């Protein structure tokens, strides 16, 4: 009877946010529409705290679900069928639905769970479940009821005009809709960590811009290409993103020629933060984001992080700080950045790697080394030299 595919999209925390709820939901609908813009005949609308996506029967459902689940703020998605809110009609659709499940998944047992959003409906939820269960038993001879561990849970969601029937809830990433939490600047290197860090902040509703440092000609143009591709993967979740590309080599040259070798890494790191802060201010980003992770490398020891932070006023978000490397790698695989990240192009952090980098730098000593450099002038020149690459979301 119906020539459409229906997908029920549930919002997670969005529903909890009181006054902001309509705004959050609207943002979420906009974002889902944007992600589905490539698909024809798709209709997205809000209704009674849920989002309904209707598409033509022949739509690529798998791709559609994938695109919806990429939207932050989506808690779960269920492919569903609908029926008029009338017990016989519901029973008929439920039988059809279950026959298809038997064919597709070879299920043997089931259980009906009913919910009545329309409290005026004369039959109570447990009774609805019982009545529909009986109809399914009659309609599908091979099925038995198992209330504890059914092969298939048949949900019946009865609302005033329509009733929705579905069996699975495909988990989304959760989080909050993009743009509901300001804008941050991610320091993106091309490694495994920074794309994950960017993704995690975006998941909490933060818009992103990125800054990428290179040391051309010490680094290959292919390294920048790689960062652009990584940003493209992140942007498929987080929306259009600008990358500010800055050559750090003039600064590295000054450091190498004027400062102690073992301090190279931490000094370079401080310059990156200073430049990033300036770029962030200019592009209205409220905070810096890095993929730093406690103790992973010399510049990420507790001492080094303290010294790094001391040179900027802007808050520095480090969403990966307490994660283990293997967990970060798993996350990178999950969001699809891992394979790209492990491509072997040198990034500027590895170019001037000292043989024995300081792991416990002292702020006073680092500042003494910096006094030999024209810090302000170098930072300003670096910011001025930026090139901007626009990454499509």
């Amino acid at each position, binding site marked *: 009877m119906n020539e459409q595919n229906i997908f029920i999209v549930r919002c997670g925390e969005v529903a909890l946010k009181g006054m902001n709820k309509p705004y959050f939901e609207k943002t979420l609908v906009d974002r889902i529409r944007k992600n589905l813009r490539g698909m024809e005949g798709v209709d997205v609308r809000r209704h009674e705290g849920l989002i309904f996506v209707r598409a033509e029967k022949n739509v690529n459902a798998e791709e559609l679900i994938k695109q919806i689940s990429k939207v932050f703020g989506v808690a779960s998605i269920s492919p569903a069928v609908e029926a008029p809110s009338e017990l016989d009609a519901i029973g008929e659709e439920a039988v059809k639905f279950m026959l298809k499940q038997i064919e597709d998944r070879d299920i043997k047992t089931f259980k009906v769970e009913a919910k009545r959003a329309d409290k005026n409906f004369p039959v109570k939820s447990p009774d609805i479940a019982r009545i529909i269960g009986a109809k399914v038993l009659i309609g599908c001879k091979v099925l038995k009821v198992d209330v504890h561990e059914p092969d298939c849970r048949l949900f019946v969601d009865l609302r005033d005009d329509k009733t929705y029937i579905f069996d699975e809830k495909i988990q989304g990433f959760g989080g909050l809709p993009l743009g509901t939490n300001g804008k941050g600047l991610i320091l993106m290197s091309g490694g495994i960590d920074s794309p994950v860090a960017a993704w995690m902040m975006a998941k909490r509703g933060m818009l992103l811009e990125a800054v990428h440092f290179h040391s*051309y*000609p010490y680094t290959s143009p292919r390294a920048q290409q790689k960062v652009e591709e990584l940003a493209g993967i992140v942007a498929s979740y987080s929306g259009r993103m600008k990358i500010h590309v800055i050559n750090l080599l003039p600064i590295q040259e000054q450091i*190498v*020629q004027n400062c102690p*070798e073992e301090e*190279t890494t931490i000094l370079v790191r401080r310059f990156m933060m200073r430049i990033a802060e300036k770029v962030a201010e200019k592009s209205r980003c409220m905070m810096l984001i890095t993929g730093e992770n406690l103790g992973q490398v010399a510049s990420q020891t507790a001492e080094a992080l303290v010294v790094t932070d001391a040179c900027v006023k802007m808050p520095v978000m480090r969403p990966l700080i307490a994660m283990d490397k293997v967990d970060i790698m798993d996350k990178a695989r999950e969001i699809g950045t891992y394979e790209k990240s492990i491509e*072997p192009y*040198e990034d500027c952090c590895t170019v001037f790697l000292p043989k024995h980098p300081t792991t416990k730098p002292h702020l006073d000593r680092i500042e003494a080394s910096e006094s030999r450099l024209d810090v302000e002038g170098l930072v300003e020149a670096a910011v001025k030299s930026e090139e901007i690459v626009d990454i499509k979301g």
Partner: protein
Amino acid sequence: MIYLDNSATTRQADEVTEAMMKVMKETYGNPSSLHDMGLAAEKKVNWARGEFASMFGAHPDEIIFNSGGTEGDNSVFYGIANSMKHRGKKIVTSCVEHPAVLEACKRLEKRGFEISYIGVDKDCRLNMDQLEEEVDGDTILVSVMTVNNETGAVMPIRAAAEIAHDHGAAFHTDAVQGFGKVNLKNSGADFVTVSAHKFHGPKGVGAMYARKNVNLPAFIVGGGQERGQRSGTENVPGIVGLGVACQLLSGDEEAVRSGVGLDKIREYLKVGILDRISDVKINSPEDGASSVLNVSFLGTRGEVILHSLESEGIYVSTGSACSSHKKGQSHVLSAMGLSHKEIEGAIRFSFCRYNTIDEMDIVLDSLEKAVRRFRKLGSFR
């Protein structure tokens, strides 16, 4: 823009492009078709076959068009290994060959063939004593490249072919870098493999000379094109492009005779480098092909010099890819016994007919500047 990476690939000559465009637009018939459009296409292919054959003084029936050097090399190795395996299990080649040869060898090794790799000296000269020792009655194939792609060293293929034939083995030369630079008439080779894009022809097309009466089973089978030796509908525009590129080669010889050839350009750059930059090592042999000059700038990293020159519009290549994750060092320079430092700082300049002496002055200026700048930072990595 100054393009000095002609060993990687060359700019397709305008004459080639024009001829190919004409064929694409007008002569698009399938050479196997019975009608006159098919015949017109077949004629084009046969014209190119004649042009290519004349470079060897060969009969047109001894020419097989294919997709390039890699296919040519692979088809010779797998073909001979198949057809001669009952006679012997040994293949002799040099350790400075192109991966199209070396990787085929690795695979044959797994199939039970014995591969012997002949070494080179510090000037990339083949160890002939070792070659003579290694080639024996069990040897079915000897393969030595005509010109080495990284150093420009010209290999003694005539002598090597003689040794092979003395023991009843077939002789193959990968002439991808040598074709058009070294005279291949009467080379003694049974198989010569060539790629068009190395001499201003199109990419994706190549040709092979295969001596009559030497049995080489087809590598690719199907519709029986190329007398059954290489099936697949002929790449007619590509083949015509290859033919035109062959014609244009005579201009290069003319240039050498009138004193404006690549040899002059190479010499000019070499003298300039030795004159203006200290601590360099010339890796190309004196008597190498005039198309290649390989130089180590000690205390620098080749890739850094490469990118630095590139930012000024000068394109060269390196002896090693200096990624921190994968040390992709040149197997050729390693075989010549160069130190890690020498390999790391190696740059290959490779020339073509479109280069000029004036360009070399610009290159020398940029090179001097880049080497000076990066030597200052050289000790850090």
